[in-house]
């Protein structure tokens, strides 16, 4: 029993470690012709560039943290403050968001002009990886 528990916790630890090290992939629809650069992606997810539809993740998670800090140099409270500035000046609305990696992949896989970010492990052949964040 004791062995099972420790094995379980080891597995959990491994899982956590993997999650922490996981690469974040920025994805578009497999048939998409647009190939935005990292700064284009920053503009899309900050609501300044409307050429593609950004699909956000609902809750703040390690993937979201890595994406926003890597691409837009903003942490959670800075991002909240940024969007408050736009919402309360009537200049923009936060991007629509979905629950998790699988939902992002499903949405980006289904919509030709959608763009999202997910854990690299969640990528399927319905989507194309633009670049990854280590």
């Amino acid at each position, binding site marked *: 029993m004791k062995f099972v528990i420790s094995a379980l916790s080891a597995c959990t630890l491994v899982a956590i470690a993997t999650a922490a090290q996981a690469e974040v992939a920025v994805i578009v629809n497999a048939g998409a012709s647009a190939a935005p650069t990292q700064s284009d992606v920053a503009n899309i997810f900050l609501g300044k560039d409307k050429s593609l539809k950004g699909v956000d993740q609902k809750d703040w998670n390690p993937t979201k943290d890595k994406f926003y800090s890597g691409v837009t140099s903003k942490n959670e409270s800075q991002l909240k403050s940024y969007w*408050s500035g736009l919402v*309360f000046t009537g200049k923009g609305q936060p991007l629509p968001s979905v629950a998790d990696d699988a939902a992002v992949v499903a949405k980006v896989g289904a919509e030709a002009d959608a763009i999202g970010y997910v854990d690299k492990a969640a990528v399927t052949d319905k989507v194309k990886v633009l670049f990854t964040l280590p």
Partner: protein
Amino acid sequence: MTQLRVLTLAACLASTSAFALDQGEYRFNGFGTAGITHLGGEDDGRSYGVNGQTNDSWRGDQLSKLGGQFQYGLTDTVGVTVQATAKPEQDNWKANLEWAYLSWQATDGLMLRTGRLRSPVYMYSETLDVGFTYPWLRLPDEVYSQVQVSNYEGADAIYTLPLSFGSVAFQVAGGQAVNRNIFAADELYDIDYKKIFAANVSLATNDFGTVRLGYTEADINTDITARVTTPFDTQTTIPLNQLDDQKGKFTSIGYQYDNGTWLTANEWTSRVIEADDQGSTDAFYLMGGRRFGDFLAHVTYAQLDEDDGRQTSWTYGLNYNVTPTVIVKSEYKRVDTSGNGYNGVFVEKAQESYNHAVYSATNGLAGTPSRNYDGDIISVGVDFVF
């Protein structure tokens, strides 16, 4: 209240389009500040600030405010936005319709709006009441007490262009704001701003911060006169500031940078009113801060220059992010004025100003000499958005 909650819930549940709301969609957002502030080191009852609510008793009505904003998509590109606030004006709480406008997202980059809008005078003008969007509890008074009108009726156009290293946004606005209040010499007076024209450009870079350049002008009408007692114990009416369609011009240059650890916010402003026998009013502030986890420590130097003298201040602040949408803030601000008897943002009653004028006109035979002021302002509060 229940209705409000249902609305909020519905707004959260509604799936939303990116920039304009889809037809039939709505959003409710709110913001607020609960704060108290105190002025020490001055005479009993001496007050300070835009509406003179900072004095030697701990008061909540200089900083506290509550606001709500409702947005509704009439079509996929046309929307209606209404924002209401409750905030104190002088000594009374007042409900304000800050804005109510129709917006049209004409193209991906161009948005046109008409109705009651916030006047884009300063760098933080459009979120003046949303303390959450700036680091202080009190925006630097030296700059932010100069133009008191916060909204106007008219139209604006905003054009945003994405760039390889960031984005640039242009805004032009025009309209008028009539029958507004202006706080002067411890009283509220009527003021009209006509033929308002404003234009600004904001260049946001991904790595090097944001620069904003703004210009606003308006024809101003106001008649600020007061009843005072003369040295002979009679009553007389004196003009303090009378403007008859004189053009006021306001320029603001701002720079903000925030890399997650270090941040800075700076703004320089200049105000000129044509033919008012006074030079320009120039002011600026320089702010630097550093984040330590959920804490933010910041320091600000601010300066205000007018013909009569100069006000300078140092502000030291410590903020704590309780959650990503709630910030507890504390601030200590030391203010000094210098010059030939200059009140700066300290409030002088009309009678005092008159007594000072009498003193200098009679070479000290009557009246009271003007003097400089100094004080220590402590503020503590909470900013939140939802």
